[in-house]
């Protein structure tokens, strides 16, 4: 069992890393959010919780790749100013491709399941 647990743990980590970006894009597809807001939205999704500190390098990379952009900076009454992130047009295109791909994978998975059924 412990071997299986380790394997699943590695597998879910890999899966989670892949899906994390998709989920960030999907969150930002509906509204522009600051890092903390993104984190809160992700935490609502079981298994996708992420520390806010871990989120910033990811957001920085996606911004450099032109998929996200800092739309504006908002001042907070009880703390420092916060950057509001949003999807770029390219980010929206990539999101569409990602969702499309995900749908196919889902179907492939279903087909594979049906075939393996007795």
């Amino acid at each position, binding site marked *: 069992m412990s071997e299986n647990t380790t394997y699943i743990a590695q597998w879910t980590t890999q899966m989670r890393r892949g899906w994390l970006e998709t989920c960030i894009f999907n969150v930002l597809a509906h509204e522009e959010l600051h*890092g903390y807001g993104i984190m809160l939205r992700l935490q609502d999704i079981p298994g996708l919780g*992420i*520390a806010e500190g*871990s989120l910033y390098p990811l*957001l*920085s990379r996606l911004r450099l790749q032109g998929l996200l952009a800092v739309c504006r900076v908002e001042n907070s009454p009880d703390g*420092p100013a916060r950057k509001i992130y949003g999807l770029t047009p390219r980010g929206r295109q990539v999101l569409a491709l990602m969702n499309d791909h995900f749908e*196919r994978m889902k179907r492939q998975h279903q087909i594979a399941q049906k075939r393996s059924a007795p």
Partner: protein
Amino acid sequence: MIAWNPAALDLFNRHCENRRDALLAAGADPDEVFGDWKTLIEAHAAAAGENEIATDRVQRELIDLVAADGGLADPDPEPVAAKPVRRGRAVRAAFGRFRTALLWLFGVALPLGVLAFELLAGFCAEALFDPIPTWLHALLIALVPIANAWALLATRPQRESERAFRIAGRLNGIALGISAYYALQFAIITPFAFIALIFGAGLLPLAPLLAFLSASALRGRLVHAGIRRPFLWPFAGRTIPVRPVTPWYKTALPAFVLLVLLSLPRLAVQIGIEPANDPDPAVRARAVWFLRAFGSRDLLLRKCYRQGENADLTSLLTQKLFGASPTTADAQNAYYRVTGNPYGAVPPPRLKGLRGQELIDSEWFDPALGGDQVAARVRGLALAQSRLDGRVDSASGCAYLEWTLEFRNASKTAREARALIDLPPGAVVSRVTLWIDDEPREAAFGGRSQTRQAYRQVAVRQRRDPVLVTTAGPDRVLLQCFPVPADGSLKTRIGITAPLLVPDAAQGVAALRLPAFAEQNFGGAPKVQTSVWLESDRPALAVGAGLHVESAGNVPAIRGQIPADASAPAVCLQVPLEQPYRPVLSRDERLPADTAILQTLEGPAVPAAFPPALAVVVDGSARMAPYAKALVQDVLGRIPPDTAVCTILARDLPEVLSGIPSADALRFAGGCDNGAALVAAAEWSATNGFAPILWLHAAQPLESGESEALRQIADFSRGQLAIYSHQFGPGANRIAEKLADQRLIRAIPVLAGATDIVDYLQHKAGRWQRERLSGANRPAGVPVGSSHVARLWAADEIAWLSDPNRKIYRAEAVDLAQTFQLVTPVSGAVVLETAAQYKANDLTPADPATVPGIVPEPATGLLLLGGASLLLALRRRIPSK
């Protein structure tokens, strides 16, 4: 803003610097992330109500960051795998790069290079077949490397674009179709190309196959790079590409079919040439129609020069399926039948586009050298100078002309100059001179075959300096000079003895039609004019365009410039004729002693009348179209209505027209063999008391397949059948040449125009009568005329002796022609270079003292003395009253 404790800030900064490289490796901006982290810590401190960020706060936050991996997880972590697996991936990646390089090389660079090479050098077109006959072919071929390059660029990971994919897919299909077509065309030589690869060659013919394989590989790459969707029932579970590849029948097939359609004219030419030469006129006519409808004239012209160009699959299939393997001679005949133009009358074909060189390197090859046809024009050879000198002797009813021609050869190979010369009606060549080392050498006259054999021996084999003149049908001679040296010139001269024509015996006017080229194998003539200077015993009444009458030293002269090209109309001049004409007596030392020639002029024996029945053969060739109006108005329209007329239009199949046709009924197309129509006319003539046949035609460059049938009818008519021919426009008449010994075809002496034809048939013209008289029979008081009268008598005599019905006299005819130094149907004139050559060919060159000349020839002075003494002797014999 919340303040930072310096120790806390130092701790944070140190942590950040430790993470800088990791963040950079993760693709993030470290400073941005550090700022975000700082803001996060400040926000947490503010939320906790802290006024200052202390070290312990920073330590707690950093522990969380480290625990959360700081967001530095590799977004694409390497799978946990053993080293051999990673090495396999590396090998696959290297192989992928190698394959891409090969695709660039064979799919893009090679086809592009081969296309450029072929366009510039025409290598394949010269050695195998022309793969790029049109610019459309070049464009289609260029699409192959473009499509392959596009596909390679579109499938690069960084350039994944749906639009680019779609275009790449369509282009790839087109490239597949085009490269497949050419790979098939080169299939015959592909095995040899593989063998040639061993020796470092063969890559060029393999280019289509390699391009096809590259396009196929790229199609697979496009399919895998594109989005796929599940296939529905009944193949659920499988996937098909959504994009970018379009079905092959939408792109590859149309491209392939387009190329096949473009090759149809070539196929038609390959298949149609042989049937176009079939002995059966019906088969021939169908094949000619087929070639006109579907063939390509350019390709047909190329076949006239080259028998090859059959190394492609299309040619192989046509050879196997239709047994089509036409020769160049077949193609030449077919070209004339299809277009109406002899292949030699149009410029040799050239390769298209950038390849401006001639397909046929006529620089070194002249297939008609030493033959009996003028054939195609050769490059570099031109007429440089032309002068026509002469003397018109109206008292003797004749003229003597000397046409001096200088040919210039600008090519690097020795050339043979050939020209078909239209002589004045009834004329005969009586002198031929060639300048060798600037010295004039006179010709030897001998039997026709004897002189031709000598010419071939010396000219073609020994490549020395001869000139040959032989007859080529009625009133025509063929002049051949070889070699006109490379970058050098050759000068020759032919002397012509011509009777003056008396179109209407009732009028005191005689006419002379000047000689002209009927066909030539040299250029330059349109720019070169013939300089004319003719002396006349009486001032001319009328001269042609470009000429004028003047008096040079009290001697009337006709001078000026006339065109020296075969396409120019003949020039005629008129001189007054004494009315009534006084007979003349001509004496020649070559005649037996105490004999002379008496020349008289006779009018029509009976009042001028048109024949009661007439068969008219009208050539249906396209070259006759410009003359249709004159044909109907000036000839057919002037035939008396009470004449029984049978009109036959000589088309691909002869068409018998009822009565006199209108201009609309005459349709002209291609080049038609008039032989079958002449046979039909001869058969009609035989049933109508051997009524004369009037043959109105353009050039007949082909030997007719019906010449033996005509010969047979002529034989059994025993000289009663006569074909009166008039040729519209320049060019050879092979039918007349072939039947020259039969004396069946007689040229109508046309001077002013087509109206002369009907006048001639009415027998209104005066006829010269020449008879040999011995001393006792010679009339008294007859003035002495030109010695050319004796030559004309000899020509008449040779014609009589060589008549096909009197074959036993042929040797005598040849002897007489040699004696009087005349070019006749049984004799020729040849100039050789050395005495040894003459001796080897049993020929004797003419004595310069006996040849005619413009200035009174040496023999003429003796003749005048002889004539005077003869008159004195005759007076003494007459008893005085």
